[in-house]
């Protein structure tokens, strides 16, 4: 039997007190998305979606804060999807999202020159 790793021990120790407690994000949905990420993702432990629930919360918080900085630079009070796109492009660890936000921008753009500007930033 595989020896429990550091995080497993911490998780199980902590989770026994929180079993059935409310989580911010739906665990079943997280599990579905995990399964869809690849054909070789077949079995997922019980605590994996719980770890993701917190990790996603931290991810949303970080990306939101960075996006808000862009909003403030534009002297606005409404966070727009373009601000999210700018934050993604400006942050190394969000490189995996670059194509996603570029596709979103291109779909809604009327001005072809703007498209060229964004694409040149991605190179």
């Amino acid at each position, binding site marked *: 039997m595989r020896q429990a790793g550091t995080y497993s021990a*911490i998780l199980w120790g902590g989770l026994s007190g929180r079993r059935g407690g409310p989580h911010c994000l739906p665990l079943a949905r997280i599990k579905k998305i995990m399964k869809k990420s690849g054909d070789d993702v077949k079995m997922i432990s019980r605590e994996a979606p719980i770890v993701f629930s917190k990790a996603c919360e931290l991810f949303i918080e970080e990306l939101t804060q960075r996006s808000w900085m862009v909003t403030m630079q534009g002297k606005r009070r*409404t966070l727009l*999807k373009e601000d999210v796109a700018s934050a993604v492009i400006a942050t190394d660890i969000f490189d995996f*999202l670059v194509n996603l936000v570029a596709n979103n921008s291109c779909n809604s753009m009327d001005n072809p020159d703007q498209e060229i500007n964004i694409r040149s930033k991605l190179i």
Partner: protein
Amino acid sequence: MVDNIGSYSCQKYNFAGASSASGEDGIMKEQDRLLPIANVGRIMKQILPPNAKISKEAKETMQECVSEFISFVTGEASDKCHKEKRKTVNGDDICWALATLGFDDYAEPLKREILS
């Protein structure tokens, strides 16, 4: 020759191998592949100042980003399991993948939250 090209095209676009969560030719329904916009919106709102507003499109973009984040990290964790000949992706693997992909800042808050 022409026949070969034709059959190649068919194979290239055959998605029948991918399992479908809810019918519709292997395409996942929107509500299955994204986390609920209300939950995502709430987390965004909580981190922003009280006078901040968030456009609906920004929330939708965030939904997409989170799903991509889950896929990205899961893929890395799953690769590790595969290499180590294990079948189950566990919490350790997720934490390892997060650190490997540059999200090591999350490790401490994750540990603190899970222990509380």
